[in-house]
């Protein structure tokens, strides 16, 4: 198991990207920062630049205009970078799959490590997904 990836699990800096979302997932992600859930006490922090990110939290159904930017952001993320598909749109495009303005599903564009379904997933579900990821990386 990659040493750097294991080190990640001490505190995770997360960069959030929306590629065509309705916003619900994005707000539930922000909700994780608020007092009731307060993920910052676990060292999970949203960062303002992808260059500081350990994890990419992606929402959205993969709107065509957003895909090139998403790819660029993934390229700029320092590796190793885990990708979390948050919400059923990011997981499998939800009811937008056959829209003219929606491209391929996220996991055909960049590799995805964690899938968190839900529309939107509750903050508890998002946190549970991140915890599963952390446990997996630690080899538990």
């Amino acid at each position, binding site marked *: 198991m990659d040493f750097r990836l294991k080190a990640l699990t001490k505190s995770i800096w997360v960069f959030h990207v929306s590629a065509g979302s309705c916003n619900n997932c994005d707000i539930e992600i922000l909700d994780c920062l608020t007092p009731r859930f307060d993920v910052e006490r676990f060292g999970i922090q949203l960062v303002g630049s992808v260059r500081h990110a350990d994890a990419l939290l992606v929402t959205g159904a993969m709107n*065509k*205009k957003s895909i090139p930017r998403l790819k660029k952001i993934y390229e700029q993320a320092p590796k190793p970078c885990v990708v979390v598909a948050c919400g059923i749109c990011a997981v499998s495009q939800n009811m937008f799959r056959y829209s*003219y*303005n929606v491209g391929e599903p996220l996991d055909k564009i960049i590799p995805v490590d964690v899938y968190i379904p839900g529309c939107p997933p509750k903050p508890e579900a998002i946190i549970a997904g991140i915890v599963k990821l952390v446990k997996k990386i630690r080899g538990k």
Partner: protein
Amino acid sequence: MDIRDKIKEKLGSKITGWHEHSSRRVYLNVSRQDIFGVAEFLFKQAALRFSTASATQIPSGFEIVYHFSHDASGTMYSVRVLLEGAEPPAVDSITPVCSAAEWIEREMWEMMGVNFKNHPNLKRLLLAEDWPDGNYPLRKKED
């Protein structure tokens, strides 16, 4: 004078059809040559609010419905313009008198392929720059 009567009086023969679906839903037809003047009257003199416009493909061509709201009475005055006949469909832009229409005309252009003459900024609004020309997503597909 009631706004309804005022509209009927001032627009006169420009109104080629008038249908009151209910007390707060009025649909009026005008021809494409008259829409600029009609929109100017409704927006500026009658001081209606421009809510939005909707373009629909119909068997004979296209129709654009401009939805104006008379907030004081809660009535929608929806002005229908038929664009029938040869392609490409085109009509005067009402943006010069109504800044609120700028975006929706751009959207109708890129989604339906209706040309808005004299629009100050007719370029893509929603679709990516590399969206293929001539591909209008809201049109019905030819079989």
